[in-house]
């Protein structure tokens, strides 16, 4: 058991535990805060995988923007079903069964993969992964077009969100 394995297991426990709290806790504000904990665990995993840029983006975009947006939405709509009434559908055992079945299938497939116990390849010392990522995102031979399409999608989605949420217009 090496240090990185211990860090992995601790963050895996953090991720799984907080994800279970996200889907089971009754209070939605608490669920959103548990989501922050789970996202933070995923950021630790990105750090372990030596994807430092993604770890930072995870904290800034997911925790800083998306989770806060969730908390805002919960607070704007919380008068309804705050703590009363069931929080899950009547068919939740079916959902749990389906989740377990999908999990069993995925684990079976993973363990069936060739060479799945491999360990990470060394990153060559002269390769600067953050710099290479930046160049891949803007070079036309690599991923410039998907990057631009994603930015147009984000712009369109945000304009649409502002229009939808802005409420009744005066006729």
């Amino acid at each position, binding site marked *: 058991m090496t240090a*990185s394995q211990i860090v992995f297991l601790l963050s*895996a426990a953090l*991720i*799984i535990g907080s*994800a279970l709290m*996200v*889907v089971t806790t009754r209070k*939605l504000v608490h669920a959103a805060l548990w*989501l922050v904990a789970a*996202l933070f665990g995923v950021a630790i995993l990105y750090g*372990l*995988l*030596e*994807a430092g840029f*993604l770890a930072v*983006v995870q904290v800034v*975009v*997911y925790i800083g*923007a*998306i989770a806060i947006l*969730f908390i*805002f*939405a919960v607070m704007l*709509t919380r008068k*309804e*079903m705050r703590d009363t009434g069931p*929080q*899950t*559908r009547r068919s*939740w055992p*079916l*959902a749990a069964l*389906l*989740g*377990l079945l*999908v*999990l069993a299938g995925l684990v079976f497939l*993973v363990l069936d*993969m060739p060479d*799945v116990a*491999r*360990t*990470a*390849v060394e*990153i060559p010392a002269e*390769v600067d*992964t953050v710099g*290479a990522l930046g160049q*891949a*995102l803007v070079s036309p031979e690599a*991923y410039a077009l*998907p*990057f631009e399409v994603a930015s147009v999608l*984000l712009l369109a*989605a945000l304009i649409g*969100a*502002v229009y*939808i*949420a802005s*409420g009744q217009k005066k006729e």
Partner: protein
Amino acid sequence: MNIPLSWYLILAASLFCIGLYGVLSRRNAIAILLGVELMLNAVNINLVAFWRYLDPAQMGGQVFAIIVFAVAAAEVAVGLALIISVYRSRKSVVADDIDLMKW
């Protein structure tokens, strides 16, 4: 870096299934979106793990993860705007109550 690849894949599979359970079992539309976020994160863990374990010189995995970030942000913005808009007109965030367009 002596963590087997399978650990990451199994962790991502469990996270995906927890998110799936949340999406299928919750009544509140916002809680359903929380489950979708968990599923998107599971996919991202897989993408980055494959990038690291197969060929770190090819940046495709990380680029794809960044595009998933952008799509997740767009999805949350539009989804929450729709939920707030529905809540304003129908005073409910329960997914079963929002059946205006259901045949």
